[in-house]
Every structure is written in structure tokens, then in C-alpha cells.
């Protein structure tokens, strides 16, 4: 096997990290560094090798690390995720890419019945240090079978951890942290965020993997969001501020576990909260947050926690309908105003 060094690789090989990067590049750097540090880290997935990954995330790694550490697989989701589980049991640190979350449904046996349960069922003898990276979310007119969000399914599984980075910096941090952790971790990536730019400093002290982050401080209402909804909430907040409404925005970052202390701290100040989620409303992460805040922060809340979520429909193809099926800046503004009343002062 020839392992040629390829300096033409995405951003790998550039002497100095750029101050601004796109999400895919940050993920790429995280993988490269993890593979450089630990020869037990290897990648499995469809078109992750020669092709470089559907969203470029593994670009250049095949040339650098060879086919055994960057393995193109056949279209056999349940079995190649299962291979990841088996390799993790034997001592490896596989990072499996499932091309999109929609196809992860075929791998649920490996994820839920195996990866999540083996440590417990074996009385703590086995460990499954497996990372599963999955693009998902509503992108652009991909139709109902290619637009799913499965947060609600994954966060309900004891044994799994689920993180959802939205920025290049978080993508780098959380993927790096997931790879060194000893549990099966699902890294949800959003298809519309891969080419989003943001500040990137690989040397900065990382936030803990499961911490939420305040993206905007405000006094009047807390918006709790993750993935693409964070950016929409930020846009809404900018517009609302011109009308005198001061919104606080929390990027949840981790969906299991959730950073309840930070959420509590925020609602203690704002006394109102809205969860903005791209996943369907029924039985989702928003429901969990709303119920829990209702239980533990009841006295701090001036109104019940509200949920602004996707409509409970399969995602339509038509662009207008598709847009209408998930929260947008407008509906976020509307939801906030319903809560606070438009300010004129």
C-alpha cells in the first residue's frame, strides 16, 4: 500500500490555520489531526475515500492515510455501522460517516441495539468508542426522503450522546472531543451549514462537548436553538432589537445531554423562552426542554416555554411549502412578539 503525502488537500497542509473557515474544513482538520495523533482512528463510509466525501469533509484523507484508514464502503448502512461497532469493541476508534441521516434509518439496529447497549449489557466490560457523523436537516428541495431530522429518535436512546455543532469552531471542537471519548457519539451536521464561514482558532480552549453557548445576550426572551436555527434566530434578534425587543440566544450544541444549568440561568433573567427547532414538534427535543424547564424553573417563568418547530408533515418538494414547513426568521419574530407584545417604547 502506498501512502503518498498529498499537500493539495483541502486545507490540510497549509502551514497556518486560517482565521475564518467553513464548517466542512473545520471538520476535515479535526479528522486529520485525530488521525495523525492516533493510528486507531479510521474512517468508514460511502464515498469518503477517493471521492472525498459528499460534503468534502474527508477530502484528502484517503491520499494521506490510505484505504485501510479511509474506507469506501458499499451501500450497506446497517452492516458498515455494525463494522464500526465491532472495530470499536476490538480497540479501534472508527469514525463512520453515514451519507445522510435519512440512510441512518437503515442502520438503527447497529446504532440503537448494538452501539448504545453493549457497554451496559456486558456489565461494563465492553466499550464502543464510535463516532457517527451524519449530515441532515432540511436542505433545498430534496424531497421528503432526503430532508429528515431524527433528533427526536436519537436523543431518546440511553447509551448515546448526540451533539449538533453549528459553527466551524464547534464542529472542530465537538468532533475532536467525540473521537477521543469512549462512548458512541452521534455528530449531527447540517447540510446547509457545511459552507457557512466562521472564526476558527484550533488553539483556543474548547468548550466542553455538551455545553450550550450564549450567542447573543438579551433581557426579554430566550431563544433556544441549534444548527441552522441559531443563525435564523440571530437574524430575527437583529430585527427585533430595532423594535426594542432584546433577545438572548442560546446555541444548544448538545442534544443529549442538554446543558440545563445554562438554560435555567438564562430564563431566570428573561423569564420567557422559546425553543426553535427544525425537527418536528411532536415528542421532540423542544418538548423535552419545555417540559423540563416547566418542572424545574416554573417560578422563574412568566409564561410557559413555547415551541416553534417544523410542521408535522413529510417535507414537501415545493420550495414555498418547504420553507413554510420549518421555522424561519419571520415566524421566529412573530413568536417572540406574541410573547412580549410589540414594543413601542
Amino acid at each position, binding site marked *: 500500500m502506498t501512502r503518498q503525502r498529498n499537500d493539495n488537500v483541502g486545507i490540510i497542509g497549509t502551514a497556518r490555520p486560517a482565521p475564518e473557515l467553513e464548517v466542512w474544513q473545520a471538520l476535515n482538520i479535526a479528522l486529520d489531526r485525530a488521525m495523525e495523533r492516533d493510528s486507531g482512528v479510521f474512517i468508514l463510509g460511502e464515498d469518503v475515500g477517493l471521492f472525498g466525501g459528499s460534503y468534502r469533509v474527508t477530502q484528502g484523507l484517503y491520499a494521506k492515510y490510505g484505504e485501510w484508514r479511509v474506507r469506501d464502503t458499499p451501500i450497506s448502512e446497517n452492516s458498515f455501522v455494525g463494522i464500526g461497532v465491532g472495530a470499536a469493541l476490538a480497540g479501534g476508534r472508527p469514525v463512520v460517516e453515514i451519507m445522510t441521516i435519512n440512510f441512518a434509518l437503515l442502520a438503527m439496529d447497529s446504532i440503537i441495539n448494538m452501539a448504545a447497549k453493549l457497554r451496559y449489557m456486558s456489565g461494563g466490560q465492553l466499550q464502543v468508542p464510535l463516532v457517527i457523523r451524519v449530515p441532515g436537516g432540511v436542505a433545498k428541495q430534496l424531497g421528503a426522503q432526503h430532508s429528515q431530522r431524527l433528533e427526536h429518535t436519537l436523543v431518546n436512546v440511553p447509551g448515546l450522546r448526540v451533539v449538533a455543532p453549528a459553527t466551524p469552531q464547534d464542529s472542530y471542537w465537538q468532533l475532536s472531543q467525540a473521537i477521543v471519548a469512549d462512548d458512541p457519539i452521534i455528530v449531527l451536521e447540517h447540510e446547509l451549514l457545511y459552507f457557512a464561514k466562521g472564526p476558527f482558532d484550533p488553539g483556543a480552549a474548547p468548550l466542553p462537548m455538551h*455545553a450550550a453557548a450564549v450567542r447573543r445576550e438579551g433581557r426579554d426572551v430566550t431563544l433556544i436553538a441549534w444548527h441552522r436555527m441559531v443563525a435564523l434566530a440571530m437574524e430575527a434578534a437583529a430585527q427585533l432589537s430595532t423594535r426594542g425587543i432584546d433577545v438572548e440566544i442560546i446555541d444548544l450544541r448538545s442534544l443529549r445531554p442538554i446543558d440545563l444549568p445554562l438554560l435555567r440561568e438564562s430564563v431566570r433573567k428573561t423569564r420567557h423562552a422559546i425553543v426553535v427547532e427544525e425537527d418536528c414538534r411532536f415528542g421532540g427535543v423542544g418538548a423535552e426542554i419545555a417540559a423540563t424547564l416547566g418542572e424545574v424553573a416554573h417560578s422563574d417563568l412568566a409564561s410557559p416555554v413555547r415551541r416553534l418547530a417544523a410542521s408535522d408533515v413529510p417535507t414537501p418538494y415545493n420550495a414555498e411549502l418547504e420553507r413554510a414547513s420549518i421555522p424561519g426568521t419571520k415566524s421566529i419574530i412573530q413568536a417572540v412578539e406574541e410573547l412580549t407584545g410589540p414594543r413601542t417604547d
Partner: protein
Amino acid sequence: MQRKLARQFFYDMTLARQFEQAAADQYMQGNIGGFLHLYPGEEAVAVGSLHAAEPGDYVVSTYREHVHAMVWGVSPSAVMAELFGRATGCSGGYGGSMHLYDVSRRFLGGYAIVGETFAIAAGVGYWLHLNDSTQIVLCYFGDGAANQGTFHETLNMAALWKLPVLFICENNHYQIGTEIHRHSAVPDIYRHASAYGIDGRHVDGMDVVAVHEATRAAVQHVRSGNGPYLIECETYRYRGHSMADSGAYRSALELAELRARDPLEIFRERALGQGWLNEADCQEVEKTVEGVVAEAVRFAAESPQPTDLGKDVYSEPLDLYGGRP
């Protein structure tokens, strides 16, 4: 055949037979809960094949795996204690009959979803190959599991990447109550191997020596870097699918015919005839095993219950609402 190996075969098959009978008794007494799948009739498969592997190899099995665990070195007491759900069980009481593990021996289960063993074994094999190891993986599965997508998906990948996995089919002719001609268009399971360019063969799974020899050759093939191999062991289970099944869908004639080929009886006669063992040897083994099984039951019954509900869900205690860190 060496006397030592003959004694080992006889010991292990006797242990398998007596242990499973004791498990059935304990189940009837209410000391074992849940699903309990027993192995009588199939002993020659696990015993013959596992003794052809090296202690450094890995074993992945199904929910019908008590005997595989014991032959691979897990003590009968630790297995029985696991069936009782006790803290001294080989999975600490958290796994049960279908989820036996012993990491120190590379015994990796114990999978209760039909068809899961394939990818686990291939994953271990991938890791071994990546590390240029000479260890191999033994992967057990039933005739019914050969209809699961994971069988075909994994055979393809294992062949494509030449993974060191030996697939061993325990063809007992039934997928619960559905006989193989009613569940498989190609009831010769070994023939599936050729679809993926893998070598495969059929062997009489009631004959421990035949299983052993076939497996030795297959192990050699796999260990030498030739990629996977598939052995189909044709066997039979005497009892129902699990303790919840009387097996009423089978004719008395069918059962009688297969019982006439009892792997334990056949081997005993052969070993006596060939002079590998004498009658006194056999009786000594039977007596020893009786003691071992009785001790396993006593140990299990007297062992403490596990008490920590929340341990080992994660690598560290994780408060789902604590968030940080």
C-alpha cells in the same frame, strides 16, 4: 486422534448437555427469567469448531451461546450466575442468557437480534487486518439468520477486503417454527458463499470430529490471509426454540431420527471403539461434570444481586440535565 483432545471433546459435550438441562430445570423453578435458548443436539458444532481456534482469537455468537462461552473458557459458574441475573455473572447480571461476554477471553457475545453477529465479527476482523494481526474471528449464526440483509452485506464486505472471519452456520433446520425449506430458497447455506467469491463447505454438524477437522482447515485458510470462509454445520436442536416453545411443529419421527444421530452418543461410542477413551474415562468425566454443574447452580443461587441500576450506561457518570462538562 489424541486422547487428550478426545477427552476434551467428551468433557465439553457432556458439560454442554448437562448444563443446559440444569438451566432448563432452573428456569422451570423460576430462577432464570426471560428467554432461554438451549443447545442440546447441537453440541458438536460449538465444541468441534472452537477447539480448532487459538485462544487469542475472537468469538462472536448468538443468543444460543451458553455452550460457546463455556467451551471458550468462561466458567460454568459465571454463565449460570448470569442466567440467574447475579452480580457474579459473566455480564454482571446486566446481560442475561442472550448477552454473555468475557472481554478477557475475547468472547464478544451474545447478540439477541438475529443477524447482528456478522457485522460485529467483520468489524473485529477489520481492526485485526488493519493491525496486520494473525488473530481471526469466529462468527456463529443460525440458518434463519442467513436471510437477514446483514449476512449478505457483510459477506460482500468481508470478501472484498479479505477480512479474517470464519463464518460458522449452525443449521438446525429451523427458524423458530419455520423449517428451512419454507424460509430459504437456497437451503444449502454454504452455497451462499460462492455468490461473494468466498470458499464454503458443508459438514455433518452431529459429528464433532468432522466439525473439528473442517474448522481446522478453514481456520488455516483464514489465518493465512485468504479472507473469509463459510462452514455450514448441519445439526438439530432437540428442544423447542426456547423454553417458551414446545416444538410441536415437528414430527415425533423427525425427532427420533435425529436423536438416533446424537452427537454425544456417537462420539462416546467412537471414542470407546477407537480406544481414545475407555468406559472408566467416560464415567469419570460424567461424574466430574455433574459436580461442576451442581456447583454452578449452587454458586449462582448464592451469589448477590447487582444493585447499581445506572452504572456503565456511559464511560463516565453522565447527568442528562447537568450538561457540563
